[in-house]
């Protein structure tokens, strides 16, 4: 056996052997202490403590803005915390070190136990101890029957127990499923972690805003998304292709403004549809709690908002209509903020373009408070109104830099390249005329939805292991491993009647919380007078 100390061959003057032996001993001891219960316990504690900052400090993976404001609030502390990984706890090396050590400890602990358990299944229950009276459960009584009858009675009572017997003794054991459950539980933990890791490696999550009333989205590449979080092994070239079209969106609110339901009627085309050149859309009622589940990907309805539509009629009669989603700044009243940008049609000269760009920027209230300075008082579309500034000049669209769709380039305003030419409040259908005769009309508003596409190839495995884990846990905690012994001593009384003295003993093997009641029942059953 590997654990035995190797003995050096007699008389061999090998100087390396002791060192190798020392290394072996050190290694062996390290392994033993890593796989001991105490280490497991300490690692569990460390895991709990290490996870806590993940709940108490803002986390990048959840909310970058909160992390940023933590930096401005605690400028002396935040950089240190950041270097130590406290804003990405669950991706930090120290958190990984703890759970990996725990998993190694678990494997080292559980595999030998599984082996022992398998061997134990083939072994016979332990022989009767000499002194049954020293067991935690013990009793002795006399039956009015001979030893054979008494043995038959015990045999029938011990149905379902694993047992062996000699002429006068019984050894029985029950509850092997406890250990099996324990092993299944611990091994499932490893499976669950592997499934989780697979999801992190090969999964992705992307968000995209699509306008209701026919807006479409196809899952063909990362660029189609507004934001995208890729797993470590995802480069975006192999997305599962499908398309979605948002036909309409409806939201219901209570009188107090609390949302009651969100529903989007969508159509979709699967990979197979696209391959086959199908042009019709399969309808689906997308709602919160009701994602569209396609092969390998899921589509969720995550958010919604408003996209005001404006039409600009230029002095030469040319018209341009634009509709861009505005950003919801207050989710309870759905007050939105945004910008609609127009380049004057037909102007190709760059210098001219820099003078004639138009931007309509401001706020939108689905239910306006009315008055000069408006705000929103209700999230639904009851009394829509916009309060906007119309700016003219250089929008910076030709600068080659990316721009936010929600804002104009502030530096252009500061430098005077973009000037305000009007400030108005408009309700749908209203328009305003600028100094050069350009007419800006607020046509109305469309809703947009925020869709999330999730792909996680590990999650089915995680679920399967979670169920196994639960079954293992249940059987391991509810089943008790217990042993039972009986010794029969035939006696013949003075009256010539054959009797049998039965001595019984019991021992619960694994936990302290009682086998007493069951033992007492067994005892009462065996000692019963009639039969």
């Amino acid at each position, binding site marked *: 056996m590997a654990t035995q100390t190797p003995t050096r061959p007699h008389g061999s003057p090998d100087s390396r052997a002791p060192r190798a032996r020392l290394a072996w001993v050190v290694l062996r001891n390290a392994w033993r202490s890593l796989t001991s*219960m105490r280490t497991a316990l300490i690692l569990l504690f460390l895991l*709990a403590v290490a996870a806590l900052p993940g709940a108490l400090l803002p986390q990048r993976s959840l909310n970058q803005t909160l992390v940023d404001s933590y930096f401005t609030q605690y400028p002396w502390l935040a950089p240190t915390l950041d270097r130590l990984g406290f804003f990405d706890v669950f991706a930090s090396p120290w958190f990984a070190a703890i759970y990996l050590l725990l998993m190694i400890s678990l494997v080292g602990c559980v595999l030998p136990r599984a082996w022992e358990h398998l061997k134990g299944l083939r072994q016979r229950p332990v022989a009767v101890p000499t002194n049954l009276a020293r067991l935690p459960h013990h009793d002795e009584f006399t039956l009015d029957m001979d030893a054979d009858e008494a043995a038959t009675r015990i045999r029938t009572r011990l149905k379902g127990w694993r047992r062996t017997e000699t002429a006068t003794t019984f050894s029985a054991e029950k509850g092997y499923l406890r250990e099996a459950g324990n092993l299944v539980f611990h091994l499932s933990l490893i499976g669950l972690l592997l499934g989780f890791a697979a999801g992190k490696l090969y999964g992705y999550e992307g968000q995209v805003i699509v306008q209701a009333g026919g807006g479409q989205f196809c899952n063909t590449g990362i660029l189609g998304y507004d934001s995208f979080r890729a797993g470590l092994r995802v480069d975006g070239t192999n997305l599962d292709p499908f398309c979605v079209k948002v036909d309409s969106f409806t939201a219901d609110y209570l009188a107090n403004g609390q949302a*009651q339901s969100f529903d989007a009627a969508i159509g979709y085309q699967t990979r197979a549809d696209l391959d086959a050149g199908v042009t019709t859309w399969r309808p689906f009622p997308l709602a919160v*709690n009701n994602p569209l589940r396609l092969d390998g990907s899921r589509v*969720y309805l995550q958010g919604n908002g408003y996209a005001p539509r404006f039409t600009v009629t230029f002095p030469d009669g040319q018209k341009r209509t634009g509709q861009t989603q505005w950003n919801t700044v207050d989710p309870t009243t759905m007050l939105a903020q945004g910008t609609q940008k127009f380049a004057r049609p037909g102007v190709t000269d760059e210098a001219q373009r820099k003078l004639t760009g138009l931007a309509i920027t401001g706020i939108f209230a689905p239910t306006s408070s009315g008055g000069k300075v408006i705000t929103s008082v209700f999230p639904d579309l009851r009394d829509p109104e916009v309060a906007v500034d119309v700016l003219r000049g250089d929008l910076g669209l030709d600068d080659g830099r990316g721009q936010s769709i929600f804002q104009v380039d502030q530096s252009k305003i500061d430098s005077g390249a973009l000037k305000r030419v009007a400030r108005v409040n408009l309700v749908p259908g209203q328009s305003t005329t600028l100094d050069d005769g350009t007419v800006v009309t607020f046509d109305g508003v469309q809703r947009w939805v925020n869709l999330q596409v999730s792909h996680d190839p590990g999650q089915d495995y995680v679920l399967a292991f979670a169920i196994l884990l639960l079954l293992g846990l*249940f059987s391991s*905690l509810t089943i008790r491993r217990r042993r039972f012994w009986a010794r029969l001593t035939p006696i013949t009384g003075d009256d010539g009647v054959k009797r049998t003295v039965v001595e019984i003993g019991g021992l619960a093997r694994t936990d302290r919380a009682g086998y007493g009641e069951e033992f007492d029942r067994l005892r009462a059953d065996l000692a019963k007078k009639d039969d």
Partner: protein
Amino acid sequence: MVLTDLALYSDRLYMAAVAVYVLAMVLHGVEYAAERASKQVLVGAGGPDVEVEEAPARPRSERYGRMAVSLTVLGVGLHLVSIVLRGLAAERWPLGNMYEFTSAITLAAMVTWIVMLRRTPSMRPVGMFVLFPVVVLLFLGGTVLYAPAQPVMPALQSYWLVIHVTTISIASGLLLVPGVASLLFLLRRSGKLPEFAAKLPSADVLDRLAYRVTIIGFPLYTFAVIAGAIWAEAAWGRFWGWDPKETVAFVAWVVYAAYLHARATAGWRAERAAWINVLGFAVMIFNLFFINMVVAGLHSYAGLPG
């Protein structure tokens, strides 16, 4: 309207249940005090007149104890009906905000307590100590956390809500009892307040109570967390995202796993295991209150007023 009537009755029954629990707690306190009187005589005087002194005192504490238990059962009845009416008034499963969670958790704790008491009647002196945190929680629920009966937001409209939140509440209520038992166990073993602690059941009985309830509460809690993950997958697009609430649920789960390990580790079986069990319940409460009220996350739609 009929529904607002139902809501009103529900609130009144809630208050009535709290009042009855408080009364039961007081009676348990009197029972405790009465029993002390008898034992003081026993310790102090000794000799033959002990029996004379003890005879009238014992039945008295016994009587108060029985009354306390009857009142507790009555309180549980009122409490249960209050929750049912609440669900009818809001026309949904009555677990949609912190007031309702607190109500459900405390009901589960009281039912657990009554079941344990039926099995082990000698546990009765513990009643006062179980009722105390329950009354405190109910008081906080009825004041700070109170929210009127209303429908819930779309993310909460799912049958997984019913499964997840119901099992979490029951598991939390179950785990309250071991938390109290382990604390009393520690008191008993520490040798502090000997006069006070001597009326408690033996350390062994307390320890067994803690363990027995934990091994029911823990798997149920595990199931509830898994159900929550299934719901999160349908509602938020991922089954686990280390949201603060999820993180602390994980921490609590690990602490209870540590408790079960400690019970099987030499040198950790007794006091240390009990401390871990108390810590486990502290984390559960921390998750319910601190995380809901202070740390914002996806779970923070607990329906707090204001």
